[in-house]
């Protein structure tokens, strides 16, 4: 009986076996393949790559399958793998102006060079369950534009011509891109590290924080200057060569939020920017990220810090879902040693109160 309250190796092994059974489910149904997950659950794969900070569709799909579709668990799996990989160096900054754009929209201009491209969006679908997806109906080929090398200028570049928007900002020439997975985190953070933290931050957490700024908790008057989704080239400087070489292409979502700004003691009246960049296709995440990035620039821009979304230490310390889920879920580990200590204390305090009440009664009786 006493032994029964303790776990053990056999219990853990049995649990793992049961988990594997549940993961596979009904054996009379075909098993889902990695290829199917990549092709048909691509946005789940994208989210896992984004929040795991590792661009690898096959491994992300493997993680989704292994985690039975629990995406935070999948992110955790992929991160635990990522941490074992060697670091060769940092890429040169992505040039998103050269993106092969699949979707590109601006809310600030009706039309603009390069046009508005809706791309594969849910935006104007009517959210009615589609019975044709209950079975495997054939799907038509989409209309395609001929590939071109057209460079689609960024909305921020349009505003920059007039000097109405703050520039990209510069780091000193000797600045090395930070890596928050390799250096201890310290506050206040530089913006590159902060953006890194936001890029791998939990989509739901950033969504809620971004939303809170729209509802008045740190309002920053945002306009979607531009959202673009497509493939960009990743290049890396190789010291021996003296020039950048291409490592390949990745799909990213970029959001440039343009924010009204009346000016302060630190900066003139101009449009400011919040920035979001996410692996894969994830507009919700990129938009939320750019709202929160802008909110976190409050101090830099001389604004009052009044809301949670503007509080760097609060936001960055709690945005990581792998950390958050671990610590919340650790509450299910045994705590009976501490609980025993609390139990003894509460019993003792109750006994004290009881004793005090009784002695009070005695005094009262004596007085009567």
């Amino acid at each position, binding site marked *: 009986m006493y032994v029964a309250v303790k776990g053990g190796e056999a219990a853990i092994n049995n649990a793992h076996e049961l988990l594997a059974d549940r993961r596979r489910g009904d054996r009379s149904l075909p098993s889902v393949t990695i290829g199917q997950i990549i092709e048909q659950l691509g946005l789940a794969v994208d989210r896992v790559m984004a929040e795991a900070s590792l661009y690898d569709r096959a491994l992300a799909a493997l993680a989704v399958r292994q985690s039975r579709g629990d995406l935070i668990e999948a992110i955790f799996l992929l991160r635990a793998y990522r941490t074992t990989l060697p670091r060769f160096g940092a890429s040169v900054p992505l040039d998103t102006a050269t993106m092969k754009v699949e979707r590109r929209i601006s809310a600030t201009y009706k039309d603009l060079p390069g046009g508005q491209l809706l791309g594969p969006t849910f935006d104007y679908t009517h959210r009615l369950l589609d019975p044709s997806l209950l079975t495997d109906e054939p799907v038509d080929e989409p209309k395609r534009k001929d590939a071109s090398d057209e460079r689609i200028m960024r909305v921020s570049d349009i505003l920059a011509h007039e000097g109405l928007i703050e520039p990209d900002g510069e780091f000193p020439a000797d600045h090395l891109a930070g890596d928050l997975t390799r250096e201890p985190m310290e506050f206040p953070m530089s913006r590159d590290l902060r953006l890194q933290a936001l890029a791998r931050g939990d989509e739901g957490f950033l969504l809620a924080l971004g939303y809170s700024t729209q509802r008045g908790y740190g309002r920053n008057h945002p306009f979607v200057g531009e959202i673009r989704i497509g493939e960009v080239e990743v290049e890396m400087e190789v010291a021996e060569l003296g020039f950048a070489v291409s490592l390949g292409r990745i799909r990213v979502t970029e959001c440039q939020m343009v924010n009204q700004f009346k000016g302060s003691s630190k900066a003139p009246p101009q449009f400011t920017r919040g920035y979001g960049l996410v692996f894969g296709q994830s507009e919700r995440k990129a938009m939320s990220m750019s709202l929160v990035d802008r909110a976190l620039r409050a101090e830099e821009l001389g604004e009052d810090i009044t809301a949670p979304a503007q509080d760097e230490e609060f936001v960055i310390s709690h945005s990581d879902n792998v950390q958050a889920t671990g610590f919340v879920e650790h509450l299910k580990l045994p*705590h009976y040693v501490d609980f025993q200590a609390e139990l003894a204390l509460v019993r003792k305090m109750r006994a004290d109160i009881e004793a005090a009440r009784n002695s009070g009664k005695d005094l009262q009786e004596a007085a009567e």
Partner: protein
Amino acid sequence: MTDLATYNFAYLDEQTKRMIRRAILKAIAIPGYQVPFASREMPMPYGWGTGGVQVTASIIGPEDVLKVIDQGADDTTNAVSIRAFFQKVANVAVTTHTKDATIIQTRHRIPEQKLAEGQILVYQVPIPEPLRFLEPRETETRKMHALEEYGLMHVKLYEDIAHNGRISKTYAYPVKVAGRYVMDPSPTPKFDNPKMHLSEALQLFGAGREKRIYAVPPYTEVVSLDFEDYPFEIQKFEQPCALCGAEGVYLDEVVLDDKGGRMFVCSDTDHCEERREHGHAGAMLAPSKEAAE
């Protein structure tokens, strides 16, 4: 994708181990000071011992003998899981015997048996900052440590006495190390605090999620905070262990039935088993022992 699982000895790569060892050396040089380190993402969840595991992985060698306990016991599920991890990635010898271990990784307890020179006790720490519940901001608490500004902690303990007639902290009871830094002993019951004082063993603390390492070198003063008129006291149990009859040890309360039946047994399972092997028996095990005497 096929050669996924090729890991270094003790999982971490050598560069990471070097980085962690540097943090450990700094921690030993400044007892009780929380050294920030670039905590890695481990294959177990944050809050489940990732800090302790990284410390152990950085100091363990093929000759080491490892013991892992959680709540004082070697057979609690998370202790089993961490022990199995090191058997798999480092192939080291493991033991449940406190005296045979060179490294003991623990969560929530310090073994009852006095540790000896050469042994290392590695604590898993959830929240390394003893001032965290008084001041949530890291930027502030680091300043408070730098200025040795611990008034707030004493005020909190004093308020406790004013409200409850006693300091109501029963675990993670703050200590002052080598007369300088106030330190969180991790959520061990305050019963274990005196064992830290002038311990012959090296004590290392790892907090993975919070990215901090701190240490108490051997033979270092560790004093539990208190007041002259309210001196620090440890928990006392009214009865000995029901299995081995030990007194002056920390006990777990085991509920026997739904009618209020309970028994108290050693939290330190190795200690309890060893005593029983040496013929000690508590009330539950040896109803006949007294009769025989």
